């Protein structure tokens, strides 16, 4: 294997490790942090099914964002749906051996790359030209968009211009990364478009758990969106509050006076 292939192979595992460990830690943190009070925001679902439906609408359609701002919704949704379809299509590169016929169906998803790039461009435009959004933007907010834009544009360039990369070589490299015990690692193509593309994807993986990309797990843990509005039907109490009720009654009495 070439030095550059070894470098990228190592980088993949490091990024993947950082991503998995980082995400697991954050998700665990969200999981164990209690939501001590019922705080769902209207319109509140009164049943668990209602919560599932609400969350589905939120995650699939970006319902709240739609209510809020049509342009941000349009660009944001285009970007996310584009990214999703493109990611699905990328499975072909990681698939060891011959592709099942089903992959013919996802072949057109390559055009989703345009949705992704248009969405990102729109979001960038808003960040630059809308005064309010410019005010709240930190350098990292621009960099994140630039990072995604370069990933998207480099992908588009490889797919739709004559700057094709050796797709079979990519497939050997990528499937080797995930199935190395059986098929071993391979070299990767070294065209600058491809290396840029893949390098930034690995960077994106690594910074996922330490950046605002935490909105991905975050939305599922958001108490204003994932709680059932049933506080009159059953008691909702967090472990710390219950413990405090039992153990700290005395301390509360000392500071705030006796209850009963």
């Amino acid at each position, binding site marked *: 294997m070439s030095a550059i292939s070894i470098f990228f192979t190592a980088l993949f595992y490091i990024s993947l490790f950082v991503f998995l460990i980082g995400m697991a830690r*954050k998700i665990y943190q*969200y999981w164990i*942090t209690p*939501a*001590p*009070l*019922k*705080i*769902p*925001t*209207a*319109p*509140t679902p*009164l049943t668990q099914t*209602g919560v599932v439906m609400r969350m589905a609408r*939120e995650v699939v359609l970006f319902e*709240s*964002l739609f209510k*809020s*701002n049509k342009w*941000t919704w349009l660009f944001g949704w285009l970007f996310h749906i584009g990214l999703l379809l493109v990611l699905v299509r990328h499975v072909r590169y990681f698939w060891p051996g011959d592709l099942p016929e089903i992959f013919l169906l996802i072949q057109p998803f390559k055009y989703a790359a345009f949705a992704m790039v248009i969405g990102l461009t729109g979001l960038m435009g808003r*960040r630059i030209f809308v*005064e*309010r*959004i410019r*005010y*709240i933007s*930190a350098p*990292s907010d621009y*960099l994140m968009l630039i990072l995604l834009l370069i990933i998207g544009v480099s992908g588009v360039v490889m797919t739709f211009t004559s700057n094709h990369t050796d797709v079979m070589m990519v497939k050997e490299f990528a499937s080797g990364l995930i199935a190395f015990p059986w098929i071993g690692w391979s070299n990767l193509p070294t065209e600058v478009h491809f290396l840029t593309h893949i390098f930034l994807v690995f960077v994106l993986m690594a*910074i996922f758990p*330490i*950046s*605002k990309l*935490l*909105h991905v797990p*975050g*939305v599922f843990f*958001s*108490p*204003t969106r994932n709680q059932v*509005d049933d*506080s*009159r*039907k*059953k*008691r*909702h*109490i*967090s472990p*710390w*509050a219950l413990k*405090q*009720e*039992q153990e700290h009654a005395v301390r*509360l009495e000392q500071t*705030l*006076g006796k*209850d*009963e």
Partner: protein
Amino acid sequence: MAAKEFDIPKLPTYIEIPEINEGVMKGDGPFKSVEEFQTPLGFPGEKVDNWQEVAIAKMGELKSKYRSVQVFLDACVKCGACTDKCHYFLGSSDPKNMPVARQDLFRSVYRRHFTFAGKYFPKLVGAKELDDDMLDDWYNYFHQCSQCRRCSVFCPYGIDTAEISMAAREVLDAVGVGQKYCNQILGKAITIGNNLGLPEPALRDTLLDLEEEIEEETGVAVKYPLDVKGAEILLITPSADFFAEPHIDGLIGYGKVFHQDGVNWTMSSYASEGANFGMFIGSYDVMRKAALRIRKAALDLEVSRVMVGECGHAWRVAYSFWNTLTGVGAGATDEFGLKLQNQLDSRYPQPQHIIEYTHDLIQRGKLEFDKSANDDRTVTFHDSCNVARATNMGGIPNGQFILPREVIKAVCNNYVDMERSTIMESTFCCGGGGGLLTDDLMEIRIKGAMPRMQALKEIEKTDGVDTLVAICAICKSQFSKVLPKFDFDPYMIVSAHQLVSEAIVMDKPQTEDSEAQDTAEEVTEQ
């Protein structure tokens, strides 16, 4: 502190998103609390020496106790969806009143101290140190948030600035920089039993006066019972209902409804306050302390239902938090909670809102109204933020919007809603909620009222609306103050139960005189 000169916003035909004006609302914030008010709540009397250390430790504690705080601090992508949703931003144009920018005051410190990126690349991610300037900004701008949660409705992740604002105020209290208005009031509420510091004899006198007044006016002996053991209903209402205008007319309305139903009800002198400012300052302990008084009153008076009067955040605390805090509802397992469960009438959801009660009586045909009594009015309803976005009524989806409107429509003929994007879950705050209802915050209160006033002005023009109904004590007080600033009649704000009171047909007592009179009338008719 001399009152600052400021312009009262002009009301545009539609809400325009203002260009940002950095620093227009910068200032010292509301009056600061002093030792006398801090100590009873368990907060330091003055700014502690090692305040930075204490503050950062408190932030760490809060983010480990509240999932909301932890998730909301991480999840924001700065999409800007909330930037034009806050009434204080729309009214003041200070960018730090955009919800995300308000949160960022807190988030930037969180990033600096608790995140990898903020520790090693602070400039890159906008992480900042908690220095004197930052603390001043916290105090100032977290007291320009009424915790109305409008931003949360529009956030793709449901990020609720109220949660961050409560956390920030809790940190401020922990370092000894509290707000006088809230903390002074809380001291009275948890020692005397109400925000006004009204002791039992004064309360009893007030209620007696009210009874006399009503009897004189209507000839019906409507009672306002206090501390009646064994009553069926315990009414917990904001203490403003006892004194303030127009609140008291709402209290008259509750009394008349109870009277017509013939129910045995009472109020408590020990727990004579529906409001719970513990929520505003973000303190679970203080909020619980205030709520426990109500549980104790319910147990002592052996009532079978607990009911809440017209008060926005009180209903949030009651509906969403009481069961958690004190077991007023179902499922508590502690000794007093269990005792209460056994005592309360399980046929009714506990607690209940007075609107739910009146609505139920209307549905069952128990109340008779002369709607023409309100024919001189064209009415609209202001959804109070805490009721609208944090509670329910009637146990049906969106009941908190439906029930009050149905009650109002049952008692008056002319009802119009304001523009859809300014009501229901998208309602604009009155501008005075969340612990801001103090004269030292008048500038932000007036500016923050602009979006609501704008929507009101529009239907005043198109439909001749001359009456604004609210079911929140804070809204009522705030509107009384700010309405005239926008060329409205300050008396156009009324309680929902004031309209009920005006239209309700009271059964006259069947005395011998009146019977004789009735017979006489019948005879003459024949």
